[in-house]
């Protein structure tokens, strides 16, 4: 495994299998009375978040703590970054304290890669702009593999705001790597420009018609419509988005009862996902959250526990 986790492309299929196997053991730890393993005792993990986050940040924090690492959260609001300090100075200051891993979220695509070239610590990308969010993709693939048994040949629909979604980018890379047949669905205004050549090369399909894709799907992944995009002219009204691309109660009826429904959260109930779908027995949303801790434990463990090979 490489020193940093910046993109799903830093991992090969064997690495992903290793992470999933470790995550499965970490999952068992969550059910224990004593949720603590000593593997990262004496290691320090800093969560450096320049964007708001609840689940990713707390998930990394819990993962680090359960592995006995010292974890510290720094949010950009209220930090020296808001006083005008450059990213480089902020990061070098933190690194100078003697940090073993830097978990970073930043609004600029490529920020994690840039930071990894400045510091000795292992850098884990927890979301950079509209680029990637590798641990989210890992936990999604892990959750789906547990539900479906295998991802090989499974038809997976990813639906929503593709243009602004780092979750979608990492997920396409991860799921296709593991042999799934991915179809991404979005209104034309939210389909990334230039997706044609990429989809041809990476081996996934695109569609504008959710009702055509859903009956075939073995799993559905709904993406969040980011509220700040609603006034951007990408779709006429929230209602119209729901009619065309929401997982409504009617569309839920089209899905088989065992077809898992994923959503990276936070959900806009009634917009991209109806409450009936979010709370359905086949919804994997809470599984994703618990898998998130297990996957992040696995990532921290494999990046930090051993000597560099």
């Amino acid at each position, binding site marked *: 495994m490489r020193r940093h986790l910046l993109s799903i492309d830093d991992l090969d299929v064997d690495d992903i299998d290793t992470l999933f196997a470790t995550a499965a053991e970490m999952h068992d730890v969550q059910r224990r009375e*004593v949720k603590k393993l*000593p593997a990262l005792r004496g290691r320090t993990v800093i969560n450096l978040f320049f964007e708001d986050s609840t689940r990713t940040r707390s998930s990394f924090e819990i993962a680090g703590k359960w592995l006995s690492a010292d974890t510290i959260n720094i949010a950009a609001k209220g930090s020296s970054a808001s006083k005008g300090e450059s990213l480089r100075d902020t990061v070098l200051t933190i690194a100078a304290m003697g940090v073993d891993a830097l978990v970073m979220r930043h609004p600029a695509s490529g920020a994690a890669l840039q930071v990894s070239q400045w510091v000795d610590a292992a850098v884990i990308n927890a979301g950079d702009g509209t680029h990637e969010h590798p641990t989210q993709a890992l936990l999604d693939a892990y959750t789906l593999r547990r539900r479906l048994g295998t991802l090989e040949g499974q038809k997976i629909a990813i639906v929503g705001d593709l243009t602004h979604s780092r979750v979608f980018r990492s997920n396409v890379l991860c799921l296709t790597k593991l042999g799934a047949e991915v179809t991404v669905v979005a209104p034309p205004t939210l389909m990334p420009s230039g997706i044609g050549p990429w989809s041809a090369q990476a081996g996934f399909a695109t569609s504008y018609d959710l009702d055509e894709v859903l009956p075939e799907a073995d799993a559905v992944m709904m993406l969040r419509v980011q509220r700040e995009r609603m006034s951007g002219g990408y779709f006429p009204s929230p209602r119209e988005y729901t009619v065309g691309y929401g997982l409504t109660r009617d569309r839920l009826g089209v899905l088989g009862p065992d077809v898992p429904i994923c959503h990276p959260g936070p959900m806009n109930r009634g917009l991209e996902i109806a409450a009936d779908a979010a709370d359905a027995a086949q919804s994997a949303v809470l599984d994703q959250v618990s898998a998130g801790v297990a996957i992040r434990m696995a990532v921290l463990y494999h990046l930090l526990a051993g000597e560099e090979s």
Partner: protein
Amino acid sequence: MCAQPEPDANADVHPEGRTVLDSRDIARALTRIAHEILERNKGAADLVLLGIPSRGVPLARRVGERIRDVEGVDVPVGALDITMYRDDLRRHPARSPHPTQVPPGGIDGKTVVLVDDVLYSGRTVRAALDALNDLGRPDVVRLAVLVDRGHRELPIRADHVGKNLPSARTERVMVRLADTDDVEGVWIG
């Protein structure tokens, strides 16, 4: 666990060196250990056998089968992984953990017998005691090993030993079991 590298999948590697135990010797040793455990515990009540992966797990299972043959009682058998508790984690590339399986009845108030293939430095057993501590509080913890090759680095000893094997630190002790490998036996070389 300390005496050999992680088990490799290619079981066609034929062990070299002097044979210490063949499969029948192993069978006899395990039968004796099963009897010793029962004698010491005055029966099978509250016993839990926990094998330390990888080869301790099938050994624990076999001891459990022998106890059933003798007492007619199914003793709970599980696995206790110690990867995360090793004191040399930082010296090697990160290893993937093995499954830990605690039998449904748990270990609180039980007599836990840890089972491993080779007792060497004692560091694996120390790690296992730490791991056990996070899972519950047994009344008694005992240790059964197939081979004790000496060279302890910690104040740890086994309660039940299949074979005491004086060895030099430079020698390699290899245990192969039919469950995990194609061959079965103990070799030193």
